């Protein structure tokens, strides 16, 4: 690996990080504004999440909870894993560090960011945190396999586990095979669950369990978790666009960049619309729906293994 390609990769990684960190709160601002307009009210300014995060940075950090060291670890790790994933996902230009890992690594990092939430709730130790942790665990048990199958179907069609092959769109360049179309449908339905918004926000059910796993966090740690959640939405949107709707990524550079972010914005706006018009599902209703999606995705991977 030559020095200049290394420098290019690191520079690209830095660019990805800056892009993800800078645009993630803006996406949440757009979501909140859209939710407000659907509710016929004015809504916060678009830069509101930036103000929220900056304010949280200066608040006193009450070290409450049973294991403060593990809480700190959970906060830093959640942002770190999500940012690492952001370097592996193409965000408008090919992913800078995609030569450093494959699909398994991507899956592992996404799973780890979910585990960080579990760690956060478990380390805090209050009753509300534990209920949130158990709900989040039930959700993750059925959702992570769907993500694995989505990436697996792409890998089967690309005949490779390397990220450049799976995420750069070539599996579905020519025509969308049946398994690909099936996974597209499944991921569309499941995207709301990955974003963690209504109707699938049972783990963080505000009116029921007081913010779930994050109940005991305040100050900088809460800012880290909230930022990680925002960046996770951007990363998942990038993953979805790269896997299933790569049209436009072959265009020359400024257009491809704009096309990517336009698609991501459409996805994020769709999440907000669905969240604004639906009520929350109970955890057993949600898990039942995920199981149906999981059944479809298992059918999709069987079809993909058969070459269709």
């Amino acid at each position, binding site marked *: 690996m030559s020095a200049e390609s290394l420098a290019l990769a690191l520079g690209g990684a830095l660019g990805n990080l800056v892009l993800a960190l800078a645009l993630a709160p803006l996406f949440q601002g757009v979501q909140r504004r859209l939710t407000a*307009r*659907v*509710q*016929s*009210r*004015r809504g916060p300014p678009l830069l509101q999440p930036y103000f929220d995060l900056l304010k949280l940075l200066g608040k006193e950090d009450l070290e409450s909870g049973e294991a403060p060291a593990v809480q700190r670890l959970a906060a830093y790790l959640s942002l770190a894993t999500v940012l690492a994933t952001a370097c592996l996902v193409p965000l408008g230009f090919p992913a800078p560090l995609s030569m450093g890992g494959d699909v398994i690594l991507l899956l592992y990092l996404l799973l780890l960011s979910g585990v960080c939430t579990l760690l956060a709730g478990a380390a805090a130790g209050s009753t509300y945190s534990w209920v949130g942790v158990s709900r989040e665990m039930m959700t993750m048990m059925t959702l992570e396999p769907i993500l694995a199958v989505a990436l697996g179907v792409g890998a089967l069609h690309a005949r490779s586990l390397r990220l450049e092959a799976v995420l750069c769109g070539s599996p579905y360049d020519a025509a969308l095979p049946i398994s690909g179309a099936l996974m597209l449908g499944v991921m569309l339905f499941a995207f709301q669950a990955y974003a963690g918004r209504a109707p699938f926000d049972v783990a963080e059910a505000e009116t029921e369990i007081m913010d779930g796993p994050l109940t005991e966090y305040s100050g900088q740690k809460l800012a880290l978790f909230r930022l990680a959640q925002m960046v996770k939405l951007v990363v998942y949107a990038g993953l979805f666009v790269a896997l299933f709707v790569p049209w436009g990524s072959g265009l020359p550079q400024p257009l491809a960049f704009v096309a990517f972010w336009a698609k991501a914005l459409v996805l994020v706006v769709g999440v907000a*619309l*669905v969240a*604004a*018009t*639906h009520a929350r599902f109970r955890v057993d209703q949600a898990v039942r729906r995920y199981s149906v999606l999981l059944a479809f995705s298992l059918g999709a991977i069987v079809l993909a293994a058969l070459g269709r």
Partner: protein
Amino acid sequence: MALLSKLKEAWIGVSAGVVTLPYPLAPHPPAPGFRGRPIFDATKCIGCGGCASNCPAREILIFDPCQELRVIRYLGRRCTSCGRCAEVCPEKAITMSDAFELATNDVADLEQRLTLFMGSCQRCGRCFTSPSPLEALKLAGYRLDDLENGRWIFGSRAAAPGPSKPDVEIEL
């Protein structure tokens, strides 16, 4: 399909426009007849104490430092703007204004205090309705008989601030 009906629901919300009042940036007067803070007028008050005896929150307090002076204090903390004081006042000295923006960082801002002259009867020395300023100029002196009942005449109920009732302490 369920999703279409949800989209229609979202469209209804968006097409209603923005219904938010521009409230703090533009005034929003309440409906006529709204009862806000009561305003006490000392020029009309006769010191009868009807408002104080009628206030359900015991928020109007009366003290007589001496026979001829009566101090009426309206502490605005617990006032619920029920309007009973204004309703019972015989001289219409209390008006319910429509001021509702009463947020403050000091409860003493809400207090209104009146010091009233209670003129005494020339024959028995007890108080009657406070004369108008013109009559106050003509008031000459008092009868000196009936010393037997002096204690009833001179006994003015200066409020003695007794020891405050001990409250139950909670282990926090």
